[in-house]
């Protein structure tokens, strides 16, 4: 029993490492997704050109940009699987679907985390956000917990949309309503961390609790539900 658990962990790590190696070799995140996210932040500034507004809504914009970029990253994560029938080959090899889920989710989380750091940095530079030390710590915790939730739920629904060949348009419809709690929770927590609109750091922690519930729930559910959703 424990040997299969070790085997699954090995597969999950192999899948995560494989996805990150693909990103390292192709640099899609660095060369395409990150510039896209940055330009979205600049466009927000054009659309909301008003003194003080940007600073106040910066947390929401960071997370909106994250969600939009995440859609692109998820599509990419499953395009590499279907381009040459690799997911089929994994399936024929009898590789455990739950382990594949964990591996792909971890790789997605790492990429999202890098992206979010970049977006927060952009907000600090472009929108004039100022953080205290406590606020900075809270921001990091928020990023980590929100990313775990987004990565797991994104992999779950990404797999479903990828199984439905040629229906990539389905992903936003399925995914965006589900991640509403993350958008709400992460935005409020980040507001507290940024001190936007006079909020204090301590107001953020309950929201991080909400993010934590979401993350734990979808990590557990995703491991079970991924196989039936993706398999034929």
């Amino acid at each position, binding site marked *: 029993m424990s040997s299969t658990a070790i085997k699954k962990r090995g597969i999950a790590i192999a899948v995560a490492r494989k996805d990150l190696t693909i990103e390292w070799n192709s640099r899609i995140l660095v060369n395409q997704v990150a510039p896209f996210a940055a330009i979205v932040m600049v466009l927000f500034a054009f659309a909301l050109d008003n003194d003080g507004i940007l600073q106040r809504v910066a947390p929401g914009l960071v997370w909106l940009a994250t969600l939009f970029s995440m859609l692109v990253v998820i599509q990419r994560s499953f395009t590499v699987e279907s381009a040459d029938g690799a997911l089929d080959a994994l399936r024929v090899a009898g590789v455990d679907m739950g382990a594949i889920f964990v591996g792909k989710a971890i790789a997605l989380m790492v990429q999202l985390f890098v992206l979010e750091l970049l977006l927060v940095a952009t907000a600090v530079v472009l929108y004039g956000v100022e953080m205290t030390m406590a606020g900075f710590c809270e921001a990091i915790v928020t990023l980590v917990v929100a990313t775990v939730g987004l990565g797991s739920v994104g992999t*779950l629904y990404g797999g*479903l949309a990828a*199984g*439905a060949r040629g*229906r990539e348009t*389905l992903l936003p*419809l*399925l995914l965006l*309503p*589900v991640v*509403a*709690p993350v958008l*709400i*929770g992460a935005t*409020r927590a980040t507001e507290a961390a940024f001190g936007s609109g006079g909020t204090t750091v301590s107001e953020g922690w*309950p*929201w991080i609790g*909400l993010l934590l*519930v*979401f993350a734990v*729930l979808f990590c557990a*559910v995703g491991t079970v*539900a991924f196989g*039936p*959703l993706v398999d*034929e």
Partner: protein
Amino acid sequence: MARQSGTGTSATRRLGILVILMLAGLALCGLWFSAEDVVQGSTVRIMYIHVPSIWTAYIAFGLTAVCSAVYLSGKNRSLAWDRFAGAAGEIGVLFVAVSLVTGSMWGRLTWGTYWVWDARLTSTAFLFITYVGYLAVRQLGGTHRQRARRSSVLALLAILEIPLVHFSVTLWRSLHQEASVANPNAKVALDGLMLFSLFLGLVAFTLLFVWLVLHRQRAMMLEDAFSDRGLDLAITARRNEAGA
């Protein structure tokens, strides 16, 4: 072969007649006999369809979840459960749409605006979109079993996700709005006939839902049987092709 017209049986026909009579009664009670509300005037009458339709939608989505769970847990995995789940999902989406439309009409008359970012409204909108997605997944194609497996897993995910969305939206509003917009029921002092009308509406809509689900489920069964028949013909054609 017995003559079969449509998807009805004598039982559903009787149920249908009962539903029509009750809806007519609801219209009379709601629009004519019951009194205007002291505060809201005639706008209170929207409540008689607004409340029953959201009630029905909750029943429908609950049924979708239960049928999906039974489908997944059952040994023989009967497709009938999947069809019931799908039928209930479709009708649930319809009733959420009705309650959103009637709700915003009521809001326009009472609050002067079609939409407010009230927690209940917002999470109902999410409920609507979630099940529109569920219906989209049902349409993805593949075999009946593929459809059943995908959509039942998704229905169970939706049931997990809805409380979380509702909870977070409620938390979101409570923080930013001191006086939350009260729900319609709280403001209304219901007299006997108004209460009766509301109750009649709940019963009538529930029975209407049962009637619709039975018919839709049978229609889906016929659709599945039709495509199975098409498959039989295609198999025969392929065999003949091979023999020729």
